[in-house]
C-alpha cells in the first residue's frame, strides 16, 4: 500500500492534522532513518515516513543524535540542575557553606603534607594559592566525571519508567557542577586578591581571559569521559572499580600538587599528552603568572575534548536504546 502513496504531495490531510511539531518531528532524523533502512530488495524505500512523528527501530543510525529533542526538554534540564543544587545540603545547618569547607580543608592538608612535610616546589607561588587553584579546577573535573560515569546505573529506576533524552542527565550534572565550581572559584579569587594586594608574588596576565575556555574544556572532558564510562559499565560493572580510585590516581598524573617546571624534561614530555595538564597550567599561568601556558597545548586539549565528547555521544546514543535490558 505504501508504494501507491510514495509520490503523494506534502500537504495531504494527514500532514495537516499532524500535531505538535515541536516534539519529535525532525526531518534530519527521518532522513537518517530512511537512509539507514534498506528495503528488502536492497533499495531505499521512502514509504511515506513523513507521516510519522516517530519511528522506533531496533538500531538507530550511529549519528542519529536528536539534539533538537534535548532542546524541547530544556525545562527538564533546568529542573535537574535545580534539584542537584538544592537537595545536596537540604536539612543541614551550614547549607551551601559546605561548598567552601571541602576545598579549604583539602588545601590545608596539601599545604601541610606536600608543602611543609614533603617540601614540594610551588613554582614561587604562595602554597595556599597554588594548591587551591589546582584543587578548584580539578574538583570540577572529578565531580563531573564521577557523577556522569554512573548516569545509567544511578538513574535506572527513572529510565526504566519513562522516556526523555538520556543525555539530559549528564548534561545537568556538568552544568550544576559549574555552579558549585563558581562558588569555589570565588573563594579562590578572594584569596588571590588578598595575595595580589598584600604581596608581590602573584603576576596575573592576559591568559586570564582563557579561564572560560579552560572551564569549557574541563566540562567537556568530564562529560565526555563520564558518558563513555557509563555506557561501558551498563553491562560490565568492572570499570566502576577502576573509576573509584582511577580519578584519584589521575590527579597525580596532572600538575595539581606540583608545577610542570619542577619536573624533568622526560616527565614533562609525558605529561604534555595529558589533556588536563594544559588546562591546569593555563589557568595557573593566567592567574598566578607561573606555569606553562601554550597555544599548542590548548589546541591539543581542545581537539582531544571534541573527539572525546563526540565519541562519548555516539557510544551513549547506542547504549541508551537497550541498556535497560542489561543494567
Amino acid at each position, binding site marked *: 500500500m505504501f508504494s501507491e502513496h510514495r509520490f503523494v504531495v506534502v500537504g495531504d490531510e*494527514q500532514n495537516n*492534522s*499532524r*500535531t*505538535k511539531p515541536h*516534539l*519529535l518531528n525532525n526531518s534530519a532524523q527521518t532522513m537518517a532513518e530512511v537512509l539507514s533502512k534498506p528495503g528488502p530488495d536492497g533499495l531505499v524505500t521512502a514509504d511515506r515516513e513523513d*507521516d*510519522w*512523528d*516517530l*519511528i*522506533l*527501530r*531496533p*538500531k*538507530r543510525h550511529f549519528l542519529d543524535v536528536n539534539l533538537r529533542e534535548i532542546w524541547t*526538554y530544556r*525545562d*527538564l534540564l*533546568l*529542573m535537574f540542575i*535545580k*534539584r542537584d543544587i*538544592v*537537595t545536596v545540603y*537540604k*536539612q543541614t545547618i551550614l547549607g551551601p557553606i559546605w561548598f567552601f569547607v571541602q576545598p579549604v580543608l583539602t588545601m590545608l592538608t596539601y599545604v601541610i603534607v606536600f608543602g611543609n612535610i614533603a617540601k614540594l616546589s610551588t613554582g614561587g607561588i604562595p602554597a595556599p594559592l597554588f594548591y587551591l587553584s589546582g584543587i578548584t579546577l580539578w574538583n570540577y573535573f572529578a565531580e563531573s566525571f564521577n557523577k556522569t560515569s554512573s548516569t545509567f546505573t544511578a538513574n535506572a529506576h*527513572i*529510565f*526504566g*519508567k*519513562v*522516556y*526523555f533524552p538520556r543525555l539530559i542527565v549528564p548534561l545537568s550534572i556538568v552544568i550544576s557542577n559549574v555552579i558549585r565550581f563558581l562558588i569555589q572559584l570565588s573563594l579562590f579569587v578572594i584569596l588571590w586578591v588578598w595575595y595580589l594586594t598584600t604581596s608581590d608574588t602573584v603576576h596575573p596576565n592576559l591568559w586570564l581571559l582563557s579561564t572560560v575556555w579552560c572551564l569549557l574544556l574541563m566540562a567537556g572532558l568530564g562529560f565526555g569521559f563520564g558518558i563513555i564510562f557509563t555506557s561501558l559499565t551498563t*553491562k*560490565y560493572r568492572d570499570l566502576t572499580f577502576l573509576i573509584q580510585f582511577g580519578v584519584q590516581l589521575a590527579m597525580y598524573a596532572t600538575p595539581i600538587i606540583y608545577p610542570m617546571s619542577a619536573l624533568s624534561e622526560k616527565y614533562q614530555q609525558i605529561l604534555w599528552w595529558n589533556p588536563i595538564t594544559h588546562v591546569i597550567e593555563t589557568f595557573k599561568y593566567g592567574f598566578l603568572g607561573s606555569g606553562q601556558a601554550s597555544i599548542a597545548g590548548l589546541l591539543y586539549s581542545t581537539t582531544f575534548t571534541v573527539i572525546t565528547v563526540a565519541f562519548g555521544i555516539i557510544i551513549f546514543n547506542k547504549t541508551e*536504546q*537497550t*541498556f*535497560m*535490558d*542489561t543494567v
Partner: protein
Amino acid sequence: MTVAIKIENVSKLYRLGTVGTGTLAHDLNRWWHMVRGKQDPYAKVGQVNDRSKSGSVKQGDGALPPAGSSMRKSSALKPEYVWALRDINLEVQQGEILGIIGKNGAGKSTLLKLLSRVTAPTEGTIKTKGRIASLLEVGTGFHPELTGRENIYMNGAILGMRRHEISKQLDEIVEFSGCAKYLDTPVKRYSSGMTVRLGFAVAAHLDCEVLIVDEVLAVGDWEFQNKCLAKMKAITTDRRRTVLFVTHNLASLRHLCSSAVIVDKGTIRHRGLPDELIEIHLRSLPSSGEQVNLNSLSGPLSSQVKIESISINSNPVCQQQVEVVDSTKLEFEAVLTAETSGVFDVGLAVSVRGVRLTTLIASETRITSGETRVIFRMPEAMLSAGVFQLGVGVSDPFNRSSWAWNENLFEVNILNNPPASHPLAKGLVHLPVSSS
C-alpha cells in the same frame, strides 16, 4: 480514521538468568557473526515466552518455530534467551482506547516499554503519530527532599511537559490531588497514598495525543480510585486521545476501552471488542482458585443437611469465586440431602461486602435423603457488574432456632452490566419498579 500507532513485526529478545561472565563470550560470538554478516545466533534459539515451562523444554505448543536450520544447533546452546514478544503486528486508530489483557508475564508490559521508548525492539518497527506520554508508574522522578510543588514541576517535566504548561494547570493538579495543604512540605513527609495521589494528579493533566498506561489505576484509597477512573473516562471520552491501557481489572477494561487485545506468550492472540475478549480471557485462565467448601454450613442443622453441589446457569461451582459475564440470566441450583427427610425453608442470600442485599427463599421444601434440587431464578438483569457473596442455608419452618447456614459460601463476580441496561441505571441491584 487515521492510524496513530503502527507496530510491524515487532519482537523482543530477553536474556534469562544473570548477566555474568558468560555474557562476554556471547557478545564476542554475536560480534563475530555480525562481522561475517550473519544473523544473531542467540536470536535463533530464543524461546517462546512461557514462564511456567522451565528452560529445558523446547518450543511449546502453538509456538512459532525458530528460524529454520537452527533447530539442530539450538540443542547445543543452552536456552538462555526468550522472546518476550514475537512478531507483534498491531494498528491502533486515532481515538481508540485499546485495552491490553493477558496473564502475568505474557509480554504486556514489555510491549508498553517498547512503545514508551524505554527500550528498543530486537526486530521490527513501531511508528507513531503525535506526542506520546507514558505512565508506567506514577510519580516517576519524585525527589523526597523537594516539596510537593517542586515535585509537580519535576514530574511534569520528566513526563515531557513544558514549565508553562504545568504552571497553567497547577491549581487543577493541586485540587485533583487533594494535597493543597502540604504543597510546600517535602515529599518525604508525605504518606505513600498522598505521594501517589500527587503523582497521578500530574499525569492526569498531561497534554498528549497518545497515552500509554500500565496498571497505575490500582492506587490510593477507594475514593481516589473512583476519581482516577472518572478522570480516565473523561480523558478517553473526548475521542481525541489514543490510549493504550494494560490492566488486570476486567471491569475497568469494560468500562473504559473501546477495543482490546489479548497478549499470550508474547504474541497477540485476539483483537476485538472488550466484552468478547473478556470472555475468551476468562476461559483461558487456569482453574487455580480456591476450591469452594460445600461442607462449611454452621448451626444446629449443619450435621443433618448437606449441600451436594451448586451450579450457576447449569455450570457447577467448583471455585470459591465464580465469574459470570452478565446477569441477564442467573439461575442457581443447589442439590441438597438430608439425613432424615423433612420439610425446610431453603434460602439463598446475596450480599455485598458484608451487607445483605436480598434473600431468596424457597419455603417449605421437602428435602429427602436422596438428592433434592432447589432452583433459584433471579429476575432478569437484577445484579449489576460487581462481586457478590452468596450464601446458602436451611431452616426448620416450625422451629426457627433450628438452622444451618453459610452466608459467604462462594462469590460471584459479575463482569458486565446486562447489555440492555440503561446507561443511567446505576446501582448494585435493579429493582422491578416503574416510573411515570
